[in-house]
């Protein structure tokens, strides 16, 4: 494999994206000209710490105005079409067959008052225009595909009656239900136990390979990235510091920050004194660079 950018025409292209929280005389930049490309069938990891802006990129890709922030420049091209300023109606048309989302919190993402079967069927009816019996049959098929045990029973259950791991499987089924070309996965396994995490990661990867979808995989965990992503973008302070093929990023990182993140990741196979926190001087340098960037790009108010 090479570190070269994808040769295929990207399915998703984030170009020079600027996003800021403005108001009460203050202007706080969140994204500072972030760019990344995702090829068809590529799993692209987006790593960074909290506040780096990775969730904001995920939202912008889904066409959501990430209130209270505002997109102040740049574009997000999905199959060549800018999705940054869609109406709610246009955005809904894009979801389903175009894009899907695997959210972080499986509890708050399902409607507690509706049965699992109805929630999957609703998506199929809304986006694919299926009738009730067809949607019901497809919902059962989808639960089988995500390896839910006793799927007939689960279809009749409410979200609180099933485990967190099973709820996340249901959300994966919903994300893949309409065979979307791109899925945004926003920290989909952070709330799960490690053994369940492994199953869910393997499941996402297999569904992705089977359906040929691309995934923008947002995570703070380099271990997860190393196991399932083809390429990675490293984000800090809303700036892309480095992007490349996963093996290159993990084994030969170019940016100091990427190196520091790897050194700060605990490993059970090494003595603890090898762990190195990200040096404060490096954080200070990156913050100074971000401010310098703001000064040079003041026009993006």
């Amino acid at each position, binding site marked *: 494999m090479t570190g070269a950018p994808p040769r295929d025409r990207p399915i998703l292209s984030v170009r020079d994206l600027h996003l800021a929280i403005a108001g009460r005389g203050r202007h706080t930049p969140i994204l500072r000209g972030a760019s990344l490309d995702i090829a068809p069938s590529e799993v692209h990891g987006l790593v960074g710490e909290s506040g780096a802006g990775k969730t904001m990129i995920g939202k912008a890709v889904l066409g959501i105005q990430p209130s209270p922030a505002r997109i102040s420049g740049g574009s997000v091209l999905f199959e060549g079409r800018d999705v940054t300023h869609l109406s709610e109606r246009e955005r809904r048309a894009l979801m389903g067959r175009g894009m899907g989302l695997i959210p972080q919190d499986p509890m708050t993402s399902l409607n507690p008052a509706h049965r699992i079967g109805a929630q999957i069927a609703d998506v199929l009816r809304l986006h694919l225009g299926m009738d009730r019996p067809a949607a019901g049959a497809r919902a059962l098929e989808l639960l089988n595909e995500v390896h839910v*045990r006793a799927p007939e029973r689960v279809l009749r259950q409410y979200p609180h009656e099933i485990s967190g791991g099973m709820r996340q499987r249901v959300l994966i089924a919903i994300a893949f239900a309409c065979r979307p070309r791109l899925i945004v996965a926003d920290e989909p396994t952070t709330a799960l136990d490690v053994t369940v995490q*492994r199953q869910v990661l393997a499941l996402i990867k297999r569904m992705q390979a089977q359906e040929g979808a691309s995934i923008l995989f947002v995570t703070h965990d380099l271990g997860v990235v*190393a*196991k399932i992503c083809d390429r990675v973008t490293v984000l800090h302070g809303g700036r892309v510091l480095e992007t490349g093929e996963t093996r290159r990023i993990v084994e030969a990182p170019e940016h100091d920050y990427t190196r520091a993140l790897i050194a700060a990741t605990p490993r059970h196979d090494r003595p603890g004194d090898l762990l190195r926190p990200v040096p404060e001087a490096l954080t200070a340098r990156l913050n100074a660079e971000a401010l310098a960037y703001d000064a040079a790009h003041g026009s993006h108010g």
Partner: protein
Amino acid sequence: MAESVLLEAAGLRLSLPDYSRKPPFGPAPPVDILHGIDLAIAPGDTLGVVGESGSGKTSLGRTLVRLHRPTAGRLLFDGRDIANLTEERLRPLRAQFQMIFQDPQSSLNPRRRVADIVAQPLHLHGRAATRAEARRQVDALLERVALRPAHGERYPHELSGGERQRIGIARAIALRPRLVVADEIVSGLDMSSQAQILALLRELRRDLGLALLFISHDLSVVRTVCDRVMVMLNGRAVEQGECAAIFASPRHPYTRRLLNAIPLPDVDPGWVARTADNQLGEELSMNVKDSVALVTGANRGVGEAFVRVLLDRGAAKIYAAMRSTDGYEAPDGRVRPLALDVTDHGRIAEAAAECGDVTLLINNAGVNRNRPISDDDALRNARDEMEVNYFGTMEMCRRFGPVLAANGGGAIVNMLSLLSRVNLPMIGTYCGSKAAALSLTQGVRAELAAQGTLTVAVMPGAINTRMGDMNPPPLEDPADVANAALDAVEAGEEDIYPGVMAEGVSQGLAADAKAVEKEFAAYLPG
């Protein structure tokens, strides 16, 4: 002896009211959370407690600092039993053991400034005579956790997650405790804040001689701060020892599963593929405690050991099945003798109807004619062996499958042999029946997984029973084999090779099956 141990727990048990099963009137029934935990922490020692949600690790931490009162067992702090002390008598001791909580956001009072939060224990325990004295100590504590005195003027919501957790640490060490229990204190933090907090804990431990009980779901995080680790599953410690040794060669299948599940930051394209298809589904595993077991061949050898071990581990009822129950004396009221010859298929069907509450089926009955394939009677020997080892096991699985399904899935344990994987000369027909039984086990597993039944193949080397004496040494203790099989049931492990010999051969088979076959072929007894 007491001077080398700071905190010691022996047989620590905890039951709490289960409000999910509370009747409309009357008290909630108790649910067992901890089932007899033993641990010891020396001054300056670090013990990691790992486990997944529901393992009881947080309850253990809270019990150790007496936020819960243990239901049974001893809890010695500095040689003094604090298990049943009243709050009044505990209060003077509390300064010596402190807890840091998982969520700093909810454990820090949002209406008070950081300096007041950190000073609170100093005032409560009369460690600061004046406000100025308290402030001086608070500033020193903030500096100790790498914050500035200016942080003292802020409110918790004005701080980052990592800074809030530092405040939690500063408050916990304010009284110079000798033991700190830290519960998942880095789980909500991102990598760099996490690494800073872990480095801080290492420093504090070194500089203050703190003993630390560090609770986490993440074995990698535990490795960075702890010398020793205890792995918990369903309220029990399944493995305990030095981190370096346990992480390099875990003994319990659950520890192995936890370690294998963690994605280390190394590129590994086979990682997803190695998550077997049957692991993509939800975990199949069950508690041995409160199970209703049926053990075939229960009156001797490994079967007898299974009955004893099941009793020890709190099975609710055990059907001890054997060809004839004449002269069998049940070792406990929970054991029900059951006349069942596994070659009598009509009787198996009856037994399945009689024992409708079985959740754990242990197919242990087996026959070994101990003769070579070249023997004059080989055909008859092979048929006898197949009749019990293959057809008997098959009928048991077939008839009890629906019983297990009706009781929520349950588990099947098939007692096979290392010789299911490789043939040993001079007992070739027996090995053939065991190989067939392994194939059968795989088929049962595939068919019953959908109903939630876990099927475990147990493949030990020779066991110290009458049947085992033809096999190569060393001989395994039957109780060890039974315990390993039940561990596998609780951990959701499918194939196990208990004992050093079996473990070694299974690794050999994975590396070079032909070489193992040749080695076994050379083993000709007599």
